[in-house]
């Protein structure tokens, strides 16, 4: 998939696109994979475990959301085991939870909200971390935020803008954005996903982006509806595409998307607002009904080696979470400040959490009220 098709592909859903968009980086970096080192001083991928790991585990995942050599290399390492990947893209928590219940899969790609709800519904199998020692390669912040399985990727929501279209103004915060939206009416795009859009608004208002307070939600609703008449649109695909030709001046957007857009137009600037940012975090989690837990644990341990994880990152182009993989990661990713923020920035980042049934309903109702206003 080329950058161009990514920006113009209308058929994929929001969550898929945001990852597919990131995947464009991977293609440009694909040739680098051959140069990735073959040794792994930090990885434990073989040993006696390979003698008992057998069978095929079925993974529900986004299309292409895997290192190009990951599955073949795993099968080579464990000849009696394999992973069958079924592409079942969805941004819906309900659909993911129903996949956990379906007994059709052994493990799934799920974000913190999905996996948290599945755990609450007793639909997951806890990983025996003693069998996944390479989890130590993943940064602590991500392991704590994603305790159900192996965290793989994340993305932050910030602001993309064209200074030349807003009088060379500088944006440093959500507050600046809210101030500028009415002045440049019809030139701002927000994300059309409730967690990302309202979560970012929570940051603007100084709330946790996982708040379940009805008062907070009312203020979030008021804040968005106050600027809604001046918004160009809520979009979940091609969010920042208008920044390239100038039909959009400002956009609430994902980090990887902006990194991609900047390759098309270097006038586009990216801001991690000073109030803080909301982010999604995803990983692979085993379902409660699986009988292939040994295969899953072996695969997660295998994927958590720097070499295999670098393959995953280089193919998908995602922001990554394993410092030891840096030498093997394509420089366009590892040296891109948008995709690899500092510890200070990560400290201001708040990941999605499962809000509980009442919290999820409150958010959903607020979102509907915003859209209907």
């Amino acid at each position, binding site marked *: 998939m080329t950058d161009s098709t990514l920006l113009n592909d209308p058929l994929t859903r929001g969550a898929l696109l945001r990852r597919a968009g990131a995947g464009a980086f991977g293609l440009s970096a694909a040739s680098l994979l051959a140069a990735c080192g073959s040794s792994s001083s930090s990885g434990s991928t073989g040993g006696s475990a390979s003698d008992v790991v057998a069978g095929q585990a079925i993974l529900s995942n986004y299309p292409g959301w895997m290192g190009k050599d990951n599955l073949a290399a795993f099968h080579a390492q464990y000849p009696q085991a394999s992973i069958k990947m079924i592409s079942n893209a969805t941004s*819906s*928590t*309900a*659909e993911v939870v129903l996949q956990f219940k379906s007994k059709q899969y052994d493990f799934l790609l799920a974000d913190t909200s999905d996996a948290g*709800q599945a755990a609450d519904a007793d639909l997951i199998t806890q990983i025996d971390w003693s069998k996944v020692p390479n989890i130590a390669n993943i940064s602590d912040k991500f392991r704590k935020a994603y305790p159900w399985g192996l965290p793989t990727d994340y993305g932050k929501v910030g602001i993309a803008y064209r200074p030349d279209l807003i009088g060379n103004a500088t944006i440093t915060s959500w507050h600046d954005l809210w101030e500028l939206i009415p002045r440049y009416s019809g030139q701002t795009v927000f994300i059309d996903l409730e967690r990302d859009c309202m979560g970012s608004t929570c940051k603007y208002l100084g709330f946790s982006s996982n708040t379940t307070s009805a008062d907070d939600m009312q203020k979030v609703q008021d804040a968005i509806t106050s600027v809604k008449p001046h*918004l160009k649109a*809520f*979009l979940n695909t091609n969010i920042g595409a208008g920044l390239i030709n100038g039909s959009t001046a400002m956009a609430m957007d994902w980090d990887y998307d902006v990194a991609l857009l900047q390759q098309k137009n270097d006038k586009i600037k990216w801001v991690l607002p000073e109030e803080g940012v909301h982010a999604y975090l995803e990983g692979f989690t085993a379902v409660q009904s699986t009988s292939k837990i040994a295969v899953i644990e072996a695969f997660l341990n295998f994927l958590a080696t720097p070499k295999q994880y670098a393959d995953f990152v280089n193919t998908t182009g995602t922001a990554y979470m394993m410092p030891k993989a840096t030498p093997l990661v394509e420089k366009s990713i590892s040296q891109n400040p948008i995709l690899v923020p500092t510890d200070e920035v990560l400290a201001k980042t708040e990941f999605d959490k499962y809000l509980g049934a009442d919290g999820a309903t409150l958010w959903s109702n607020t979102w509907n009220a915003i*859209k209907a206003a």
Partner: protein
Amino acid sequence: MERDQGGVAVQQAVTSESAQPPRRWRRPAVGGLSRLALLLPTLVITALFFVIPLVLIAVYSFGTVNQVNFDVYFGWTTQNYRDFTSALYVHTLARSVVLSLSTTLSCAVLGFIFAYFISRQPPRAQQLLLVAVIIPFWTSFIVRTYAWVDLLQNLGPVDRFARALGLHGHIDILYTPYSIGIGILYSYLPLMILPIYVSLERIDPALYDAAADLGATPFRQFRRVVLPHAVPGLIAGIIIVGVPALGEYVIPEILGGGKTLMAGNLLANQFLETGNYPFGSALAVTVMVVLMALLFLLRKAQPAAEVQ
């Protein structure tokens, strides 16, 4: 005399013919069981794909859902219908009805003009024009809808054309209710043109001549000859366009820019996003009832229009 005799002969012949019992094709006798067997495939298909799904939706609409694991319980509560009475949902449904009615009316007016124009062309030209009406259906509906995003966006062809004509500012209708209306109008117009054309094409050309010979002006011809004959096609077109337009989900999603919540989007969200099947079913039943009420009113209007 001869003439009289001949007249009698003809009369006799007529009388003798009319005295014979009419020769009618008689359907072979089919017993009750055989008749049932012949009906069975239709009954099964109707039950499987029409009745049972509708009953399931109706049953679900009285259930409740566990929002953690999405198990559905059938406690026969009316809460889902009571929830629907909140201003948010009523306004959303009302917005959808208004948009659906306005676009259906626009489709009817434009469709009638197109269909009338086609029906008055020579046969070969009619065929070519009908193919032109159908050609858009060869392309994916989604692709056609996305094409309007490129056409209507700022700095897009429509905007550039307007500026080339000297209009100041941008033609900024993408992501507004107007762009949704344009999308629905464009997508459903062929479905309106075809049934109206079928009605108009059946009008005997001699009727136009007769009306003209009797001194009818072109407008009077149109009002007294064309319009009454077009009514069945118009009503068919209004049903074919109006029903899906009310529940339209894709066009508002793509051309509405997420700023205009329509009944179709609200309904889809319950099934695809929040997993609240009972509330989604209650919404579906409500939309269905509204549609049936509108269709009932239309059917009541039809005989009167046909008589007129």
